[in-house]
């Protein structure tokens, strides 16, 4: 197993770690902002996963370089294009969530989930 192949697996493990830590962070924390951050971790992990899929050792960024016509020389542009969209989606989810947090803070005066749940039942 060459070093390069080994490292290409390591990155997957790291991404998985990031994803799982996001998942558990979301379950563990009662503070809504922390939940949101954990959620962002998960999203980022997925984006990284896609980008690694398109990665090619020695490839150049997929912007036309004069004279370089061999498609194999470039990194696969599709995952990058897809992830551009996914980033926008993440941005809007995060934005929406933050807006909700502002509203929640204003109305409940706390961002603790269990506290709000307790008061919701009343």
């Amino acid at each position, binding site marked *: 197993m060459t070093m390069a192949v080994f490292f290409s697996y390591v990155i997957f493990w790291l991404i998985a770690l990031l*994803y799982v830590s996001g*998942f558990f962070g*979301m379950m563990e924390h009662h503070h*809504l902002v922390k*939940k*949101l951050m954990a*959620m962002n971790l*998960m*999203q980022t*992990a*997925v984006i990284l*996963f*896609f980008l690694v*899929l398109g990665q090619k050792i020695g490839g150049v960024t997929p912007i036309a370089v004069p004279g370089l016509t061999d498609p194999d020389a470039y990194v696969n542009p599709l*995952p990058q294009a*897809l992830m551009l*969209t*996914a980033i926008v*989606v993440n941005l*809007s*989810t995060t934005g*929406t*969530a933050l*807006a*909700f*947090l502002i*509203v*929640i803070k204003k*109305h*409940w005066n706390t961002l603790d989930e269990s506290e*709000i749940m307790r008061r*919701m039942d009343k």
Partner: protein
Amino acid sequence: MMAHIPVLLVLVPLLTALALPAVNWMMPRLTQIFLKSALLFNLALAVLAMRHVVTEGPWHYWLGNWAPPFGIEFVVDAMSGTVVLVTAGMAFVIALYARPFFKMDEAGLQARTLFYVLFTLMVTGVIGVAVAGDIFTLYVFIEIASISSYGLVAMGGRRAAFAAFRYLILGTVAATFYLLGTGLIFAMTGTLNMAQLSTLLPPMMGSPAILAALCFVMLGLGTKTAMVPLHAWLPDAHTYGPTPAIAFLATALLKAFAYGIYRFLYQVFGGHGQPVTAMALQILGWLAAAGILYGSVMAIAQKDFRRMLAYSTIAQISYIPLGIAIGTPAALAGAALQMISHSMSKGCLFMIKSGMHLKLHTTQISELRGMSVVMPFSSLALTISAFSMIGLPPTSGFFVKWQLVRGAAEAGFGWMMAVLVLSGLLNAVYFFRILENVFIRKPEPDVHSDQSHGPMTSAGPELPLPMLAAMMILAAGILAAGVGSGWLTEHIFSLISLAGGGL
């Protein structure tokens, strides 16, 4: 023009959503006309698309004329056409219904515009989910629909904001699951197009990566569809969200995700023809059955009509995965009919719910006495939609049950027949309790107090005309879909393809 209907189906609501603030800014008087005519136009397009599917088969549209592996493809077939039709129809009816909800002052108008923008965006997303031909476009539309639905739920007040936040967190996690599954599929096959995947995937169904992808995608879509045990977000969101939004969320949005499940299991992963997918379908069937029973039992336990509806949604929506899991043509026809039937009846019930709020100032079931005196027409609509939920003839709900029970019998799933029958009876328990209160019990003295509690309360015994009209359209639709179910099944649902092979 006619040749571009698949893309126009998505573009018309999208353009409406985008242009609405500008229209409201420049010509405030025209906003409503603009919105409703656009949605009506979209409905007409949906009908035309359906006609095309019926006469000429599935319809593929390539954006920018790029062939599928490179370009984005939109597909309208019998199943997605049904979803589109339901969505466009419900969107129009709900837009009709929603007008009396807003104060007519400056802030109210802004809120109204904001509501309609999010609402039409959600319509865009849902129709997009239905017509998307590749799994990443599907993701984008899922998120468009979801994010706007988070926003809409949050418009319902302080509890709604928290419910919306929880919905957002769970929904986004579901979306990342879905995206992860998509990534795995892409890594294994190098394509995202569904039609290509359906030929590329079968040989590699045994590989653990594809198995993981299947699990992730199903987890994602299952959460969004609120299948038990991933339903935790639904009751709060549906209880506290604003009615017009929820009426759409509980109907078209959930249907679209359920449709996504069908699309993946049959047209990507190969249906009953693949052992792995067959196993997934079996698990789906068990979960759907659990959802039906859980939702019905929880609905019986509720004292609040709103919450009861939310749990009833969990139960009813599970009919669709159940039909998908059974996988005979009859069962899939039942699932498709349930998309239409449940959309109309649950939409109607949510509308009645807020009618109760307006006129009786309560949604507690025990306080609904005498409703039939105050609102006779709403009560009639309530009866029809309740019958449809229970599955009593001649409403469409009965024919859903007929098709599903028949499908289950054909496939030899005796326990599913039992679940369906039991579900109908449980539904009867909680709906007849309401009907008893509405029609039969004598009203308590203070129910008729009709003093103004807000901007929405109008004079007169019944609800404002637009709201009533919307309810009546849906109630008539329930009966029409019941009487016409044979026609629908024979001409439209018989075209639903079980690409990977049904039972």
